[in-house]
Structure formats: structure tokens, C-alpha cells
């Protein structure tokens, strides 16, 4: 079932209330009705009884298409699938925590603006070199990222010496807008926020602080880091993932200081 929701480019939270009579795997997908390859969330959950999906959208299209369907049956029209019922869809105010972001830093302000534009449009713009309005950031949007002719699994990377960011279009095009944002903020953090430019965990947490503060959904951050780490399942990445989970869980309580364990 597909519902059109006029979101008018506002920042908001979509609250989708779904009901099932027995445990069913319900898929929720929110896409841009106009711009190709622009997804805001794509998630599923086992629903038994009433369940609420919160889709945080710091960036939204003019009109969003909300797909709700039972994973087993696929996307059917209303009346053709009685295994679930959409009780309501409401638009609520987006909760943000901008006080955790250092917007007094002009680099942060500039990069958030640049990354927001790029992430929202990445599904519909050609490969090439993109530059922020103030010329402080350069992003190479490449068909794929490769080293010595071999395609790399990383969706993005930053040259530590120059600050130039490389992004794989092949991978970014399938990512949700929040996924893209989480990745770019991680790369930005390496050079511009980290004490130690090589520290991956520090970049993860510095990037996530901005990402979560802007109101992007937590589930999309879990997803993008999880999928990236599945492609490179090292012990170091497992530790990174555990720290990310802990950081996101604690964020709601403003407990964003990582303790040494």
C-alpha cells in the first residue's frame, strides 16, 4: 500500500501507526515522490498488535510516498492484504538537539550545509567534482572507488592531507539520505574534528554527535555502519560497532562521553 504524504520540504517526524492481528514482518519505506533514488527510510519490524514507526526527517521532499506492506505478501493495494491495517499517519515536530553541535565552528556550519544538499540530491546528480559554496570542501563523486584498478568496498573516504572526499556513486545511490549523511559526517570528522586523524572510532563518534543532533534517525546509522562492517568483519570493526551502539543508546540521555573500559 502506498500513501502520498505532502511534506513540503519541512523538517518533521512521520508517525506511522500499524496494527496486525498476529506477528507479521511489516516493511516501511519512505521515498521522494519526485526525485529518483531518494529514500528516507527503508526498514522492517515484526509487529504483533499495535506498533508505531517514527520516521525522523530533518530533510523532506515536497511529497513523500510511504510504502507499508507485509514482507511475506509484498506490496498490495488496500483491500488485497488484510494481514495489517494502517491506523494513522501523523506529522509531528522533529526533535533535535542542536546544542550538542558546535555550530560556532564555521567549518561545521559549512559542511553540514554542503553535505545536506549533496546527500539529498546524490541519487539524481551526475558523477563529477562538487564544491561547497564557500569553496572549503571538495567532493569527488566517482562511479566507484578503486585502488590499482580494484574496486574498494568503502562507500567514501577522505584524503587526510588534502581534505578531498571521494564518494562511490555505485554505493551511495542505494543508500538512504540519512545513511549518506552519516558516512559523510564520519569522513569530515577524520580531518576537521578528530584529535587523531587516523582514529576511526573518534571519527565515528564525532560524526554521530552531529548526525543525531540534527535529528536524523538512529536506525539508519546502525544500518549503514553495520552494512559497512559486514563487508569488512574485523575485530576492530566489531569493537567500533559496539561503541557506536553504546553511543547512540546513551545519546538520548545526553551521556555522550565515552568512558575507558
Amino acid at each position, binding site marked *: *500500500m*502506498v*500513501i*502520498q*504524504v*505532502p511534506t513540503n*520540504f519541512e523538517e518533521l517526524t512521520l508517525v506511522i501507526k500499524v496494527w496486525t492481528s498476529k506477528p507479521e514482518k511489516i516493511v516501511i519505506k519512505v521515498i*521522494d*515522490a*519526485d*526525485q*529518483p533514488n531518494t529514500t528516507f527510510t527503508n526498514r522492517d519490524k515484526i509487529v504483533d498488535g499495535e506498533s508505531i514507526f517514527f520516521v525522523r526527517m530533518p*530533510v523532506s521532499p*515536497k511529497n513523500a*510516498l510511504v510504502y507499508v506492506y507485509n514482507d511475506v505478501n509484498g506490496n498490495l*493495494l*488496500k483491500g488485497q492484504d488484510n494481514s495489517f491495517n*494502517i491506523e*494513522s*499517519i*501523523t*506529522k*509531528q*515536530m522533529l526533535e533535535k538537539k542542536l546544542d550538542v553541535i558546535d555550530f560556532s*565552528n564555521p*567549518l561545521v556550519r*559549512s559542511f553540514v*550545509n*554542503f553535505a*545536506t*544538499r*549533496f546527500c*539529498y*540530491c546524490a541519487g*539524481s*546528480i*551526475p558523477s*563529477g*567534482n*562538487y*564544491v*561547497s*559554496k564557500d*569553496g*572549503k*570542501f*571538495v*567532493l569527488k563523486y566517482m562511479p566507484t572507488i578503486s585502488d590499482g584498478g580494484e574496486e574498494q568496498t568503502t562507500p567514501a573516504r577522505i584524503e587526510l592531507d*588534502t*581534505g*578531498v572526499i571521494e564518494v562511490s556513486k555505485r554505493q551511495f545511490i542505494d543508500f538512504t539520505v540519512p545513511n549518506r549523511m552519516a558516512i559523510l559526517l564520519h569522513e569530515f570528522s577524520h*580531518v*576537521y574534528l578528530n*584529535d587523531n*586523524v587516523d582514529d576511526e572510532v573518534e571519527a565515528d563518534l564525532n560524526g554521530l554527535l552531529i548526525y543525531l543532533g540534527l535529528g536524523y534517525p538512529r536506525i539508519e546509522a546502525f544500518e549503514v555502519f553495520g552494512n559497512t562492517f559486514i563487508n569488512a568483519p574485523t575485530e576492530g570493526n566489531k569493537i567500533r560497532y559496539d561503541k557506536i551502539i553504546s553511543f547512540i543508546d546513551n545519546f538520548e540521555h545526553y551521556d555522550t562521553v565515552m568512558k575507558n573500559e
Partner: protein
Amino acid sequence: MQILNYDIDKKYLIYAGIGAFVLLVIYASTRKVDLIEITAPTNATANFDHSSLPESLQPPERLPDNAELPIPAKRPVTLNAIGVKPRFDNNNNIF
């Protein structure tokens, strides 16, 4: 007819005003969407035009092919970045 004390009236008016304001905020921030099903999504995305987007969401500037890349911002130099970290939890080690 009994005339109510003016101070009590005023207090109740303030409470009522605050209550009405809170309800108004909740009402205004929660808007129910009419569930209008799209039976056959159109292929409108094929002709998407970025100029229809608000200024804050338009794509960043794309440099012409073979154009020289500008030099990005330099990494800021901070005490922490160069490894000099002030400590405030130990009086014997100020730096």
C-alpha cells in the same frame, strides 16, 4: 450574586491561558494525514528538475570536467590536535 475575588479570577485566567497555549502547541505540531492511497505511482521522477527545490536543498556546485580542484580548508590547529591536552583533574599536571 456572589462576586468572586479578583485575585483568584486572575490566577485561574492565567492557568487557563497556559493550558490553552499548551493544547494549541500540541495540536499545531501533530497533524493527521489523510490516508489517500496511490494505486499506480507515476514515473514523474524521470523528468526531475532540481530548480523546483528550495535553495537550501539544491545540489552543490559541480565543477566543469577537467577544471582544477580548489584547495579545501586546512585542518584546524588546536592544542588537542598537537597532543598538548590541558588536564583539570590533577593539580600536579596542569599540562
